[in-house]
């Protein structure tokens, strides 16, 4: 049942296009977009985590709406490019437990970003002199660990898959 679903997915025009489009604007560019999205979401999130962990109070009033938008845009780019990459090689990803670990970590990372935004920047801002509370700091540590895990599992996908195509499944 799963094998036939994977074979069907691999044969869809979208899957064939991503996998076989003979240009750098096909699979290679989608892979680049996935890295760009990672930098926008995880990168900016890490920068904010490091800032929160190295301060006791907000020295000045801050409004974070611009950077928060960048992170959510990064999530959008990552989701769209991730779906395209999954569509290209569904059997490779869906038969690999590391892929599910990565998905869980991404969900955890996004939740951590949302919690940090709520704890440290309620309403998208923090006023001068406001303390950075312990909960926000704990989530900042959690976020750093989660993003490191996401990157690690993402890279390991290239080394841990057992099949490339559904036809190779037993």
């Amino acid at each position, binding site marked *: 049942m799963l094998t036939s679903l994977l074979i069907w997915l691999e044969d869809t025009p979208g899957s064939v296009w991503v996998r076989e489009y003979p240009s*750098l604007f096909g699979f*290679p560019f989608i*892979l*680049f977009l996935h*890295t*760009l999205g*990672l*930098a*926008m979401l*995880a*990168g*900016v*999130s*890490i*920068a*904010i985590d*490091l*800032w929160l962990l*190295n301060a006791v109070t907000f*020295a*000045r*009033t*801050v*409004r*974070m*709406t*611009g*950077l928060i*938008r*960048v992170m959510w845009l990064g999530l959008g780019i990552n989701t769209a490019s991730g779906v395209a990459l999954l569509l290209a090689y569904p059997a490779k990803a869906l038969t690999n437990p590391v892929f599910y670990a990565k998905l869980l970590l991404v969900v955890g990372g996004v939740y951590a970003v949302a919690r940090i935004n709520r704890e440290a920047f309620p309403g998208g*801002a923090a006023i001068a002199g406001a303390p950075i509370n312990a909960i926000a700091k704990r989530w900042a540590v959690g976020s750093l660990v989660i*993003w*490191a895990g996401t*990157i*690690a599992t*993402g*890279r*390991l996908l*290239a*080394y841990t898959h057992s099949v490339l195509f559904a036809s190779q499944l037993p």
Partner: protein
Amino acid sequence: MSLSDVIRWLTSTPVNTVVMDYRWVWPISEILHFCGLAVMVGTVGAFDLRLLGLGKGVAPATLHRSLRYGVAAFVLSATTGSLFIFGQPDQYFYNAAFKFKVVALLLLGLNVSLFYTLEARRVLALGPNDDVPLRAKLIAATSLTLLVSIMLFGRMLTFFRP
């Protein structure tokens, strides 16, 4: 000394043996390379976005404090990147994407020097909602473009292999 001599020398070093003979050295280096990339692009990119006005509401000096982590991350990425070159030098030295990536890295270094020479003092004194001088914005736009180019050429390495 020709390029092939350099490649021969790199492949004869113990570093090459470690990178190529131990199964997990390459994947672990890749993980560290990408972690470094995320921290570097995140910290430098967030600062650049503030200078361009997208992160207005945060004083440039606040985001500037995180740049030291960006520098540390760059060192990590450069070190792990060097391991890849020691491991398979011919895959990099004859690769157009690698050459573009190195040029982009050098230009990024030059751009950073320009910022600290011309604009840093003025920019770091600005408040959360102050507008940034045009020249600093141009430097930030160049920095962001180069960061994205570095990621782009890095991802293209596989597809330009000789």
